């Protein structure tokens, strides 16, 4: 029986992390090199953890499926990173960032973790600047800040619209320094396909060398998964094409509980899709909402008119009207759902109606006022690269015409369940960054993903790994000839062979992936209902069965084979999709990114049910996809008392 122990320290919240560190075990410098640490994924969390652990003297092996660690999808984050520096003197503090994050997460996160995150945010900025991250600066030479969706202070640091890129290149540089020093060995173009568990502890991974096709086992004393989120379950998302859930899912099948899979974030400002062939959606940083005004024509018949011909009185600035206090800066879920509603009501302005329901799914994001007030050069300075990107994709110049935007899946708050040490329910297996569920509750605030990835990677994992190794000290010796390892390798080989030899192979994996995406987007997307979820749970198992019968993979597993890579990832996303719908169906309340149509207030706001659902849903794999076992971690709020969120 799995027991969920959060291992949160007690005592005043501002002292918990400090005391936890003081009471934890350490590994002496000369002993660290005896330990082998595996890090899977080299984005902000994985890259930072691998670099820091290497620096501490551990023997680190780092893996990524891309051809270089620098290409992890953290690179695409645009807007910025939060930190409670209070450089703007506008009343920010660690406590306020903590408070905002707990509230933004709709009271479904663990207070101790969130406080630690806010506390560590300060050191991240110092670290990044020391590495040479060229954050935006003011003319006086000090760091510049902007405000970001859902916050009433300016605490977001940024590097043009490429903050993720610059922070990742900072972590990559630190990683390179350790590779040069010989403490980290990098394995690019290697995909983790299974976890090796020996005597109840995570002891290694099975990978496929994507160039040669060779299945390899890598053993270690501890394994860290920093493999990102599962947003590609929607097929179309702002994630990179390669982003996938396989590593986390394989760990789940070995006993790591998967927490809150139904908490997914839909980003309000993305470029609308233009057709069936579309391979991904592109996000326009929500920092744009600082200066852009969101509107649709008040009269549905104006939907296809040139926007400049629509007089001010016929424009419906629906966020400003409905939420006067926050206006265009309401949290992501509120902004997204309202865009959906106005489009449902026929006010949408997309070029073509959606093939699924005939609605025009897009709203305007208009910079005319800001350009008039601040001048085009200021807007260019702030958002130049985003405007350029928009123009490139749509062929429309947003300095002259309003952008058209629509929500898209962007981030997944759910992930592997971890305790305060970021350890999963499998001892020796840790999860960091988007791959874990830990800090964002049911919804993540803008500019907090980079913060969490780096806090986990630079400051939490290097420390808690030491504590774990200090506790277990000498693990049982294990070598590659052990039956456990050989079995793990053989299992992976057999799974790949089954994908290549499907009995009635005829359909490329993308076709199934698109079908899965349609099911999840329409029934477990921005808004969910019991009825829709039950339908999805009928459809997904059938899709899974058809996939394994009909998927076509050309070529063999014995070499570079992207067709095979995609098939394997889709197989795992289908299984995860089913768990996601089960979780959404079980959670009979609305909170954060999880909106159940049955549970809303009179004016259409999410209605939480704290009495019954103030817990983390952590799911255990039972072998029966339709019947995973639910474990609950109760959440208590000692500092931020749950209130109904109101952005009115």
């Amino acid at each position, binding site marked *: 029986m799995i027991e969920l122990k959060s291992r949160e320290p007690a005592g005043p919240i501002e002292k918990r992390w400090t005391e936890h560190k003081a009471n934890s075990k350490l590994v002496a410098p000369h002993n660290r090199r005896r330990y082998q640490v595996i890090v899977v994924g080299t984005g902000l969390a994985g890259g930072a953890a691998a670099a*820091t652990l290497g620096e501490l003297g551990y023997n680190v092996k780092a893996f990524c499926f*891309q*051809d*270089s660690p*620098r*290409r992890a*999808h953290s*690179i*695409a984050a645009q807007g910025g990173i939060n930190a409670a520096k209070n450089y703007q003197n506008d009343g920010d503090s660690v406590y306020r960032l903590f408070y905002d994050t707990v509230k933004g997460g709709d009271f479904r996160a663990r207070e101790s973790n969130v406080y630690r995150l806010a506390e560590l945010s300060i*050191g991240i900025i*110092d*670290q990044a*600047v*020391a*590495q*040479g991250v*060229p954050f*935006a*600066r*003011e*003319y*006086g*030479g*000090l760091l510049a800040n902007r405000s970001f969706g859902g916050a009433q202070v300016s605490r977001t640091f940024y590097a*043009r619209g*490429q903050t993720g*890129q*610059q922070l990742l*290149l900072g972590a990559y*540089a*630190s990683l*390179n*320094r350790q*590779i040069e020093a010989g403490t980290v060995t990098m394995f690019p173009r290697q995909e983790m396909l299974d976890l090796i568990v020996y005597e109840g502890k995570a002891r290694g991974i099975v990978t496929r060398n994507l*160039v040669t096709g060779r299945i390899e086992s890598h053993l270690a004393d501890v394994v860290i998964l920093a493999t990102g989120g599962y947003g590609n379950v929607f097929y179309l998302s702002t994630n*990179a*094409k390669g982003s996938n859930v396989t590593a986390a899912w394989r760990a789940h099948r070995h006993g790591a509980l998967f927490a809150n899979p139904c908490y997914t974030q839909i980003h309000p400002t993305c470029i609308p899709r233009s*057709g069936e*062939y*579309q*391979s*991904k959606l*592109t*996000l326009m940083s929500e920092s744009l909402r600082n200066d852009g005004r969101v509107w649709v024509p008040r009269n549905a018949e104006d939907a296809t008119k040139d926007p400049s011909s629509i007089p001010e009185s016929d424009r419906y600035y629906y966020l400003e009207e409905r939420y006067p206090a926050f206006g265009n800066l309401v949290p992501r879920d509120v902004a997204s759902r309202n865009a959906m509603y106005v489009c449902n009501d026929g006010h949408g302005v997309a070029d073509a109606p959606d093939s699924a329901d005939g609605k025009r799914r897009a709203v305007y994001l208009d910079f005319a006022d800001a350009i008039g007030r601040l001048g085009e050069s200021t807007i260019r300075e702030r958002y130049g690269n985003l405007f*350029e*990107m928009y123009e*490139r*994709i749509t*062929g429309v110049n947003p300095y002259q015409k309003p952008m058209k935007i629509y929500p898209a899946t962007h981030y997944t708050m759910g992930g592997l369940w971890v305790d305060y040490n970021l350890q999963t329910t499998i001892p020796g297996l840790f999860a960091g960054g988007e791959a874990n569920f830990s800090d964002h509750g049911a919804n993540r605030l803008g500019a907090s993903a980079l913060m969490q990835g780096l806090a986990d990677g*630079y*400051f939490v994992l290097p420390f808690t790994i030491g504590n774990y190794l200090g506790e277990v000290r000498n693990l049982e010796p294990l070598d590659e000839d052990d039956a456990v390892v050989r079995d793990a390798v053989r299992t992976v080989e057999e799974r790949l062979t089954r994908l290549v030899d499907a009995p009635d192979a*005829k*359909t*490329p994996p*993308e076709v199934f992936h698109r079908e899965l995406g349609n099911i999840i987007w329409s029934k477990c997307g921005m808004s969910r209902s019991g009825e829709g979820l039950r339908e999805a749970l009928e459809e997904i198992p059938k899709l899974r069965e058809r996939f394994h019968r009909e998927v*076509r993979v*050309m*070529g063999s597993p014995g070499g*570079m084979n992207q*067709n095979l890579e995609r098939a394997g990832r889709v197989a795992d996303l289908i299984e995860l999709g089913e768990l996601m719908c089960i979780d959404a169906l079980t959670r009979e309340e609305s909170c954060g990114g999880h909106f159940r149509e049955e549970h809303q207030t009179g004016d259409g706001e999410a209605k939480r049910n704290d009495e019954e659902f103030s817990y983390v849903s952590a799911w255990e794999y039972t072998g029966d996809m339709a019947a995973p076992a639910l474990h609950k971690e109760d959440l208590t709020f000692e500092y931020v008392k749950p209130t109904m969120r109101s952005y009115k």
Partner: protein
Amino acid sequence: METRTLTLHVWRQNGPTGTGSFKTYEAKDVNEHMSFLEMLDDLNEKLISRGEEEITFDHDCREGICGACGMVVNGYAHGPRERTTTCQLHMREVFKLGWTEVWIEPWRAKAFPLVKDLMVDRSAFDRIQHAGGYISVRTGSARDANETPIQKQIADSAMDAATCIGCGACVASCPNASASLFTSAKVGHLGTLPQGVPEREIRVRNMVAQMDAEGFGSCTNHGECEAACPKGISVDWIARMNREFVRAMVTAKDDVDARD
């Protein structure tokens, strides 16, 4: 929405040692809003459906920032539109040029061995970075971020260089297959900032030495790299790197360990 049929000549090669050749495909129903890679996705889906092996190419973020994609399109690295990665090249640009036939090739350079079809091995770029593309700062030992003010112009200029995505188009477009633009962007980014000054000399010496060791050619000022760079990184950075290199060679102490 405009759709066209294009004839694609795609480089197919099974591995680094095999001999490759162009294979011709008909791409039907290509529409103006598709990206270049979406056109290839569509073709690949059709190839799999009719039992052929798909075309292998690197790609990931599909929004021009990860640097994974890149192919030579009718002779242009990343295609004809300036400051645009292949994934952000939309077919309307190809239509505008009136192209009905498109030749698609991998990056070709000795230091980028071919992996398969349009995919090459760019690990040489990583090794150049290992040689010195960092500032030596231990996690947790940094001072307050605002302790050293940095002139806005300097920070902006460092950012101009730091924006490099490491795609390799500079190498692919250079007649000498030189990696000077790539290397100089990192040398420039770090060397411009006060934090990077202590390691300035050793950084440029080691990175240039590694660049040479990887088999990249020399820079002879063609400027093709800047024209092909999807991030518009200026060749001025190469001039700056050369100055920095000479300075380092002149001022280097004996104990500076350059990798030559």
